[in-house]
């Protein structure tokens, strides 16, 4: 049994070390997490108090609905998991730490909504470095029943995932001086309103265009940004400096 744990850990590390793109690491992480009965995970940097989390997301396997909701509601600043990760460099299980009766209403709302998306419990690994907070890796599911041996192996896996993903992103930023993407002023405006959590209809009202036109503009912006959905388009727009924080 303990050999199986070590092998699951080694397998992921081998995958992370060989990977030449982010998708390969996320795929490997999906496989390794499933060994521990984990289906959902997210890896992110931590934004400052006045920033949005969008440009900090490194990779995730959250339910799409939850990811969109988390971004549109800007939950990062009330999420008790994020708050705890700023204060400790030890991993923690949500049910054993942040989820308790004293939780402020705003935090409870985040945790309750997460539970509705199947994330009733989770294991979070804060990643701290000498120069400050680097990020957080969270594993979640309906139930997260992990013996200490499993939690510690996941801790190692989380550290490798975070470091190798960051390195790939950094390398990409160095190698490919960004191909500058041009959005039309209208497309840019639509994405900016998306980042503010507005619906197509609302954006249509603001810009005095039909809902269909707005949807078309956003789709076109997303495809230029090579994003598969809106949250990713928003995140990309931030990352590429098209939208500023």
């Amino acid at each position, binding site marked *: 049994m303990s050999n199986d744990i070590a092998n699951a850990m*080694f*397998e992921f*590390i081998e995958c992370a070390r060989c990977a030449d793109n982010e998708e390969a690491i996320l795929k490997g992480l999906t496989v390794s997490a499933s060994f521990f009965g984990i289906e959902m995970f997210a890896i992110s940097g931590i934004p400052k108090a006045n920033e949005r989390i969008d440009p900090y997301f490194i990779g995730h396997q959250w339910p799409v609905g939850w990811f969109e909701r988390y971004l549109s509601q800007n939950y990062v600043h009330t999420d008790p998991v994020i708050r705890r990760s700023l204060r400790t460099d030890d991993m923690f299980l949500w049910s054993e730490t942040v989820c308790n009766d004293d939780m402020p209403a705003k935090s409870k709302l985040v945790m309750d909504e997460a539970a509705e998306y199947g994330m009733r419990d989770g294991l979070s690994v804060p990643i701290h*470095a*000498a120069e400050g907070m680097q990020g957080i890796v969270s594993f979640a599911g309906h139930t997260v029943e992990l013996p*200490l041996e499993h939690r510690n192996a996941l*801790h*190692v896996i989380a*550290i490798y995932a975070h*470091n190798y993903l960051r390195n790939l992103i950094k390398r990409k930023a160095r190698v490919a001086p960004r191909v500058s993407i041009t959005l039309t002023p209208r497309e840019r405006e639509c994405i900016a309103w998306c980042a503010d959590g507005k619906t197509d209809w609302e954006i249509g009202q603001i810009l005095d265009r039909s809902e269909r036109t707005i949807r078309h503009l956003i789709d076109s912006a997303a495809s230029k940004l090579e994003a598969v959905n809106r949250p990713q388009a928003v995140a990309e727009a931030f990352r590429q400096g098209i939208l500023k924080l």
Partner: protein
Amino acid sequence: MRTSESLPCSLSKWGFAMLKVLWGKEATRQSSLMEDVWRFRHQQFVERLGWNDIRRPDGREIDQFDGPRAIHFPQLNHAGEIVGYSRLLPTTEPHLLSDVYPQLMGDRSPPRGNTIYEWTRCVATIDGSPIDGVAVSSRQMAGVLEYCLLVGIEALIVETYPKLLNMFLSTGWDVLPLNAPSQFNEHFIVPFCAYPTAATLEWHRSNYGIRGSLLDLGADVESPLAGPAQISERPRLSRLVAA
């Protein structure tokens, strides 16, 4: 070549803030510095960090592994005080992973070889100000790394908390766990292997602004490796998995 006897022990008062490298004859020659080393270790590990298992009534922290082949790296500041320390033990002789907690390896055998050393007792004072603009802890890590490259140490074995893997990985080290973390007393400990490379040293130098060597090698620069240095095969994941 200068000899250590001819140098005043307050050498560092003239501005040499470096990592001393002491082992074998050099450690015997610099016995007063070694005395300071034992006391510094007791201060840091027992009094500051609370490792009570190794507390000693005389306030000198020495263990059975501090033999002639143990390599000591006390780091001095410009005032000549010790502000950081590390120790390397040859894995061809008894060391912590082989003798104190072999159970961390499960049924795998620990890597041993001429060019494989175990890195233990690594510490930097918490109140020390940066030296020449570089944090004491960064200088300590970079100094040990530089020495390994200099003498051909190819792998370092470390046993520590899982979260400290991040310190290595985020500072340019190539690092491989040797087994999954397992419980030792109340803590989980992971044994891992860190490979010194020129790229890692370059990472440290450029990211921390370290210029030139951090080492004061003493009178005789001898290789600490026993016998002819062999280029051993690096431990590999696949081999460990198969074990």
